[in-house]
């Protein structure tokens, strides 16, 4: 498939937004359980929520460049019964609203306890909103990934690993951003978020490598002979039906050499999984606040390469009819 930058930005940016929100909420729950020191509502949760929102808005903004008619995008909410894309179009704004409310409640300081569950769990408004938003965040990971995983003719995507990878790559980069954000704010949660970021990054590495191995094993269930239904061992395409290019020769192929694609794979494996882990580990020892930020920046660059590769890797069966790109 042809990797479109609008979709690369959309999927990576909202993944980070979701992950960052989940990191903030995890932090809040931990401090509620007195496992972490409590944080300032305004300075940490409200600002962090805002940063998450910025990533979500940026992703949404990027997605509009993918559409021919963004002004009609509201129509895309109508087919949620059958289309995962439609489901994403519904869940994303809902999640953005919840993150906004979460940040707003913290900003306004509406964090007085509403009630207490069995004398231990002090429940306030932000905890309730955050809980709902966390569920929606995971629903959004599933929707985004299922857009690809549900296409049964794109074998490279048609696997539960796609959902696993979208989720863990989003979590990893979101927690990485939380670590960078804490480092920037000088809050001593860097180790907490950094540890989780490393755990998620390593989990994502297992999933991504598993999918790379799976896709390497894939063999086409079709060939030129089955595509045109002429059962003869010697078949050669002489013309594709037109002289120049067409949608069919552009949309379904990356138009890069095999070597380039392989280099992108090596690059993303390095930048997404190895460099950030090393940098976070180094930041433990050096107590540096720059390193977590660098870890996030490198991981994001790597994620863009990862998403590019994700698209380029998928071989669309229609390419059989265009042997120059098959």
């Amino acid at each position, binding site marked *: 498939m042809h990797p479109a930058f609008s979709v690369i930005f959309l999927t990576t940016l909202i993944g980070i937004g979701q992950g960052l929100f989940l990191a903030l909420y995890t932090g809040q729950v931990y401090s509620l359980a007195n496992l972490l020191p409590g944080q300032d509502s305004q300075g940490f949760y409200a600002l962090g929520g805002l940063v998450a929102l910025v990533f979500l808005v940026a992703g949404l903004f990027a997605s509009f460049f993918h559409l021919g008619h963004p002004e009609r995008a509201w129509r895309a909410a109508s087919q949620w019964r059958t289309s995962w894309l439609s489901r994403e179009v519904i869940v994303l704004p809902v999640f953005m609203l919840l993150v906004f409310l979460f940040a707003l409640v913290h900003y306004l300081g509406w964090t007085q306890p509403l009630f207490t569950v069995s004398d231990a769990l002090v429940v306030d408004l932000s905890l309730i909103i955050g809980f709902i938003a966390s569920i929606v965040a995971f629903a959004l990971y599933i929707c985004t990934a299922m857009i690809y995983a549900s296409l049964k003719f794109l074998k490279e995507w048609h696997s539960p690993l796609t959902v696993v990878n979208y989720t863990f790559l989003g979590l990893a980069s979101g927690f990485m951003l939380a670590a960078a954000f804490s480092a920037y704010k000088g809050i001593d949660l860097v180790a907490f978020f950094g540890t989780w970021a490393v755990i998620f990054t390593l989990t994502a590495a297992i999933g991504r490598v598993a999918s790379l191995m799976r896709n390497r094993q894939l063999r086409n269930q079709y060939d030129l002979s089955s595509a045109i239904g002429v059962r003869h061992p010697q078949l*050669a395409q002489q013309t594709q*039906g037109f002289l120049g290019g067409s949608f069919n020769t552009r949309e379904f192929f990356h138009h890069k050499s095999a070597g380039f694609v392989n280099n992108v794979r090596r690059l993303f494996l390095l930048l997404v999984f190895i460099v950030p882990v090393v940098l976070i580990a180094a930041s433990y020892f050096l107590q540096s606040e720059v390193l977590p930020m660098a870890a996030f920046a490198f991981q994001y660059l790597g994620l863009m390469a990862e998403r590019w590769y994700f698209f380029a890797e998928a071989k669309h069966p229609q390419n059989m009819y265009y042997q120059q790109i098959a």
Partner: protein
Amino acid sequence: MTQLALVIDLNVCVGCHACVTSCKQWNTSGTAGPLPDQRPYDDDPSGVFFNRVQTYEVGCFPDTETVHFPKSCLHCEDPPCVPVCPTGASYKREDNGVVLVDYDKCIGCKYCSWACPYGAREFDENNKVMKKCTLCIDRITDMSLPEEERKPACVMACPTSARIYGDVHDPESAASKAIREEGGYQLQPEWGTKPANHYLPRRKQQIHISEEELVRADNPLRKEDEVPFDQQSETLDDVAW
């Protein structure tokens, strides 16, 4: 239920592209249009077509044969392109099974084209919507046309009658008969999309000659001994140049 479709005879298609051009002409001027081109006279032309004719060489030189392969939307009975559409712009008509795009609803997300394994959909870069073969829905449902013209433009244009149009669910239709009697097949049936369009394979030519065709009706040059009738009066051939 009716399922309108094309049956394309690879045995007689000569690859003349008459279906391609007539399709482009009709649909550009019809309700599906325009089918815009980009840089049509430059080095890198591109454009929307609903129908393309590809050419394949089968066999090893010198024992090769050329197969021309017209390719358009197959109007699948279980079309994977329809349920994925987030707007409902892509739909399959209940009454005749034609798969269509509502260009006023389409947001141009191209998701349907990813879901179609046959590459039958083409994005219109000028109008930013997805386009595809409509089976000339504006011809075949136009009751003001005489019945013999209520056919897709490609079918009307094909000089070798390689394109048979009809209801593949009606066992008595010409399309169904051709499928049944001439070994009609679907493209990649194992994909479960149940394409409505069928193709007729290359097959041994059979010429039907009746007894009368072997007997000459007249013999203008009198070259053969046998004269079919006695020469009482002159025939038109005898007096004409």
